[in-house]
């Protein structure tokens, strides 16, 4: 349903002198993945890994420097106005910050009804639909006339979900939707999202930095590091037998078993201005060798549907 092919996003930094060539930062470096209808694709990575940039491109908030994104077969970056309108209806988002997502000055009803109004629905009908949506996410219809500051973080995310689903989209981009919420409330929102997916047959892109939560929600997972996908495969396979050293560290953290300091990543995260040559991860990898500096590893399929970008993936010792 959604097919991302080799997208790349570079940013030019302001120049220090007129004569120097502009420095470029590559935020996303040749990323490809696809999401089938009804699935959830999880994208895991730390801040700076490029995952949010990918989300922005999928939402047409940003143009890739290279590569393409296809939705239901057609390229999204060469759409006319009519097609773009349809796309905007089909792809919606729930973002990380529940406090910034809702305008303080608008009533909840108007906020939730807005996407419908943009699509052309008259006010009365849009508000009625908004009311139904709010009930579906577990908030009463009396929230229509209240203001955002009267609600908690978790409730605001529910409102954000109601708003996103009001136009009956096909795809939902979820960018760290529970990271800013209290731990005891996260499962409520995740449960809501899962329920909605079942009921409405939605397709999700779920972005996060906590592998446990991403795994909980996803059918397939891609692990990003420094703008590249280092491992990609079915969620249970990736979680059960992680192949890339970075993934293994994330899985160990998610499983929560190890004592403090047991699986240590050495070194600092490299600066985006000076990415390490060859494999970006080699500066922090316990298994790095000469080849890693010379040659960037390519994603290759080691098991069915499960690919990894590491020269030594097949030879690494089993994790404890």
């Amino acid at each position, binding site marked *: 349903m959604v097919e991302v092919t080799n997208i790349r996003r570079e940013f030019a930094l302001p120049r220090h002198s007129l004569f120097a060539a502009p420095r470029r930062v590559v935020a996303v470096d040749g990323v490809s993945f696809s999401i089938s209808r009804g699935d959830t694709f999880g994208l895991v990575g*730390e*801040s*700076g890994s490029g995952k949010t940039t990918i989300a922005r491109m999928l939402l047409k908030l940003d143009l890739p420097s290279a590569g393409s994104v296809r939705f239901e077969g057609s390229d999204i970056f060469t759409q006319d106005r009519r097609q773009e309108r349809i796309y905007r209806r089909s792809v919606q988002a729930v973002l990380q910050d529940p406090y910034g997502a809702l305008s303080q000055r608008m009533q909840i009803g108007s906020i939730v009804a807005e996407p419908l109004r943009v699509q052309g629905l008259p006010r009365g009908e849009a508000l009625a639909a908004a009311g139904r949506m709010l009930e579906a996410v577990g908030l009463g219809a009396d929230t229509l006339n209240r203001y955002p500051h009267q609600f*908690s*973080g*978790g*409730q605001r995310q529910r409102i954000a979900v109601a708003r996103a689903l009001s136009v009956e989209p096909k795809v939902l981009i979820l960018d760290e939707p529970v990271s800013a919420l*209290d*731990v*005891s*409330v*996260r*499962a*409520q929102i*995740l*449960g809501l999202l899962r329920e909605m997916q079942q009921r409405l047959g939605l397709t999700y892109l779920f972005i996060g*930095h*906590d592998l*446990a*939560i991403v*795994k*909980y929600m996803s059918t397939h997972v891609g692990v990003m590091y420094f703008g590249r996908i280092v491992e990609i495969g079915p969620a*249970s396979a990736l*979680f*059960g037998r992680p192949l890339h050293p970075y993934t293994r*560290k*994330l899985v160990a*953290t*998610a*499983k*929560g*078993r190890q*004592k*403090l*300091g047991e699986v*240590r*990543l050495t*070194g*600092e*995260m490299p*600066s985006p201005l000076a990415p390490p040559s060859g494999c970006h991860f080699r500066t922090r990898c316990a298994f790095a060798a000469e080849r890693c500096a010379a040659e960037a590893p390519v994603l290759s399929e080691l098991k069915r549907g499960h690919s990894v970008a590491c020269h030594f993936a097949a030879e690494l010792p089993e994790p404890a």
Partner: protein
Amino acid sequence: MTSREPPLISTTGLGVVYGKGANPVRAVADVAFTVLAGEIVGIAGESGSGKSTLCAALIRALPRAASLSGEVQYGGRDLYAVSPGELRRLRQRELAMVLQNPMTSLDPMFTIGDQLTEVLEVRDSGGDLRAKGIALLRRVHLTAPELRWSQYPHQLSGGMKQRVLIAMATASAPRLLVADEPTSALDATIQEEILLLLRDVRDAHGTAVIIVSHDLNALRRVCDRIVIMYAGRVVEDGPTEAVFSAPRHPYTRGLIASLPHLEDNDIVLSSIPGQVPDLTRLPDGCAFAPRCTDVLPTCGLQQPLSSGAGHRVFCWMAEVSS
């Protein structure tokens, strides 16, 4: 776990209220809590728990809009009765604080070296301040300390800045270090490093460390003791392993259950229904009662009292069953 030693810092009946008039906010209510020398204590809670306010109250760093009730005893003296001069001396030598956001804690106009020197001068160390400063940076595992000395804050990553802040805080081997969400603004892989560093500080200087965080897993790995807070009150307080393996308060149990955990190689998540109460409209009785699964009639009427000695809990159910 009784100790003959007097606690380093202790509070009785501590309360903090913001704002006057019709709807004051009870950020912290009735907190009695102690920290022994050399202990690492974690204060855990979610939004509205009052943990950051408690933290600020412990070292007399509350904003002016706050009114305090109760007492904070530091080293046997009432911290709030101490003269401003004496308070300053305490802050120079014995009390240190590391805050949540390393991005804003360092002055962007001065180099790391300048700021570290300033701290060293205030703490009255003589001699070659640069050498001392660089040694400090090395001790917090900052790579290439000589280079960092002449760099500006914006040239360092979040994790590096936090290390610098810890170096500044521990420059004079303080007796108490308070860290308010020291790892929240950092990436997951760096968080562990910072926590290890805090433990190193305790091991090297015998500094007592108070870590405030919403990340239970992190606290579990580093703390000797854990205090759980909800809606401004302490609900449970005991040795880390005891609290995690046998939590006595329903909120603690719910909180631990909310952490993603593994069952048959599958991730399981649960939540606590409802949300944190509005701090201006707290119910009589236990603030957690509306969300609790085992409620007694008394829960809605009166604040629970503490039961248990080494492992305290504030819950009517726990009292009944013990």
